[in-house]
């Protein structure tokens, strides 16, 4: 099967039913995308497909073909995406396990809404953080929105 992952065309020999999550993790060794629940409940596996946040544990390899798949590894060189920088400056992660999914979801949110309200953030950011970093995530998202508005 052929995929476009982080702007690269890749051919992988997998069962079409395999969830994209495991293709990324086990076949492509892109382990930044995480497994938390496997049923779409936690958001740890969130990646972007043509810019939309998708739970890769629920999306089969077959259904992922023909899309531009972006994972945390493809977000930037050297963690330089504005969201990543805001995450660093805000000291957001604790254990860090949920953060790839949080960041990818936040990227999609800010692409969709330049200046999200608290309600927008609540609605978009359904990802679980077991460590409870929510207030720092919220602050980091708002900071990026502010900076974009200023520039």
């Amino acid at each position, binding site marked *: 099967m052929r995929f476009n992952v982080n702007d690269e065309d890749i051919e992988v020999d997998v069962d079409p039913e395999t969830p994209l999550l495991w293709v990324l993790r086990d076949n492509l060794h892109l382990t930044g995308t995480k497994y938390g629940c496997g*049923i779409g409940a936690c958001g740890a596996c969130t990646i972007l497909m043509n810019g939309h946040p998708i739970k890769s544990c629920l999306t089969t390899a077959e259904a992922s073909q023909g899309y531009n798949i972006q994972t945390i590894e493809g977000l930037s060189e050297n963690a330089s995406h504005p969201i990543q920088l805001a995450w660093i400056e805000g000291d957001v992660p604790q254990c860090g396990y949920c953060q790839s999914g949080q960041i990818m979801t936040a990227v999609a949110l800010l692409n969709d809404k330049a200046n999200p309200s608290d309600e927008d953030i609540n609605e978009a950011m359904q990802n679980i953080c077991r460590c409870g970093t929510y*207030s720092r995530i919220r602050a980091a998202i708002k900071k990026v929105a502010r900076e974009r508005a200023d520039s």
Partner: protein
Amino acid sequence: MSDFSRRDFLKVATSTAGGLMVGFPLLSMGVSKPYEAKQITAREINAWLVIEPDETVLIRIAKAEMGQGVMTSLPMFIADELEADWRKIKVEYADVNRSALRGQLYGDMTTRLSNSVSESRLMMHAAGAEARERLIKAAAETWGVRPEDCYADYGRVYQNSGAQSLGYGEVARLASEVSVANVKIKTPEFYSTLGLATPRLDVPAKVDGSAVFGIDVRVPDMVYATVLHNPVPGAGLQSMRFNAIRHMPGVIRALRLGDAIAIVAETFWQAKRAADMLPVYWKSNEGNKRFDDTIKREFFEKLPSPGEVMMRKGDINQLMDDAERSIESDYYVPYVAQAPLEPLNCTVHVQEERVDVWVGHQDPEGVMDVVAQLTGVSRYKVFVHNCFMGGSFGRRSHMDFVIEATRIAIQIGRPVQMIWTREEDMRAGGYRPMSAMRFKAGFDVEKNLTVITNHSVTHSIEYDQDKNATGVDEASVEGLVDHPYRFPAYSFSHSRLNTHLKSWWWRSGGHSINAFAMECFIDELAAAAEQDPLDYRKFLLRDEPDYLRVLDQLERKSLYRKRRPRRNTDVGMAIHKSYGTLVAVVAEVTVESNGGMRVDKLTAAVDCGNVANPMTAEEQVEGSLLFGLSATLYGKLTVEAGRILEDNLDTYEILRMEETPEVEIHWELSGGEHWGGLGEPATAVVAPAVCNALYKITGRRIRSLPVRDYYLTVK
């Protein structure tokens, strides 16, 4: 320093292009196990710190990073003494094998009981100070001046005269050869790094996907395994039909592991799919097929029995008889899961002469010993590569998943990564114990409290581990027997009641159970005495200046005395000490007319003595509060016919962004030599504060968790 370690230094120094290793046998006096030279490489050294010629300072930490920030806060102790340039600091885990070989060179490497700072602190102070003195001495020798005429600052050694300076990297090689004596550690007024809000060093790797958690380890030739357990714990395995899945793609083998089954395949997904399809016949054990209600009843039926008396003062029965008025309340908490977001996993490669283990674990030394025992390989040949933990909250101190992975790897002969699915992680859990307890109190005609009794019935973690355990499990009664209140007469007693489920540590242990009941009952006492709960606590704590100070701070800084904006909003409070840290919290709660409730704000006052890194300290308290809130609102595992119903994160709900209240933290630090823990204490106070607030709004006491059994939660 012994000759032996002296030799280590020299070997090390030559093998690392002139780097300085400082590592001294603080705890290894008189221990001289043969050290295996072939293990020495630039990156695997028995030492607390390495200074490279390019001025990089590599610091080793002996505690594990599970989100609590030790990878940043612990190096601060060394960097402070060292007068290092913080920008040059790099961190790695101390080597478990070296520690074992050298008689616990790194101290106790277990991360638990919020102990990281309090246990490692003195060793790290000493390591940094010794290195600093060596560097100064080396620079002085280079210049031909006296060490007394030099000082260290920000990664360089200077002459007092200001004439010359040298970077640490430039004198590191010489520094590893000089000897220094009577090194003194700093007194707090000279701290430079400690106490400064310092961003976490592990953050950059956690925003670009490069941080390696146990589940991310990829070893050449590795295969994957997943495990099925009898959903009714302890009932055992009857049979399985491997032939039904043997031809599925990627499937390698199915193994019986005692009561469990492992499916090994080329990829995890192939293993999981085969496991889903495998026909399995579990044994049934009628005794274990219990339901929530029956288990709960067993706990409550034990409450009237006297239990084992742990502390007692006064003629309890007489005082109860004499009481003008008495109150009695039963409290109850269900089993709850830690549910770290990274499901349990462990990667093991067993070879003839060595075993490698990649795992995120709170107790890497324990892992080494368990794996050595199972494989028959010497513990010095078991190499534990500790990884980042995607949360633990106590779960990753258990050995169950390490044992299973090792057993699989022994039979497979290739590196195996065993991952429990989330469902197995939930069903084969080690849960926070179930507990029920009964409080009684008597009052005289003037509404003065005259006597209080407590009998707790709790599932014992100790007894799960050791069926010969006798007496009261301390973890079951922590927070009860060490309560600070001045009661005129009292009795505290305990009974153990274990079910077929397996219990284990959960962030803040027994405190989270016992503080809930105790702090709710204190509010009941206040109501019976017709006093404000905060005032009443001050009265009961009149001999405890530390508690009073924290309560005063909370009173000043919180909304406690402020007017409520709405009739359906009110505040509740609780105070509790655990792991050397005192936390008081005010919860502001709103109840809607439709029966929904919401926590609007948590305000905490905290005294842990000293804080190494105010940034991670704040994160830890906030995280602990929210962990406590998640359990308060949702935490419950339902037992049905012996099995746990909540087997994934859709049914086992966890607090989300939209339910997260505003959090405010006020530090009330008492200083001195005291460094209390921060990873857990704030968890325990949330449930009672929320339930006490709900009572004020609705007049209804909540005496069992979670709150969701009583109210809808609104976002």
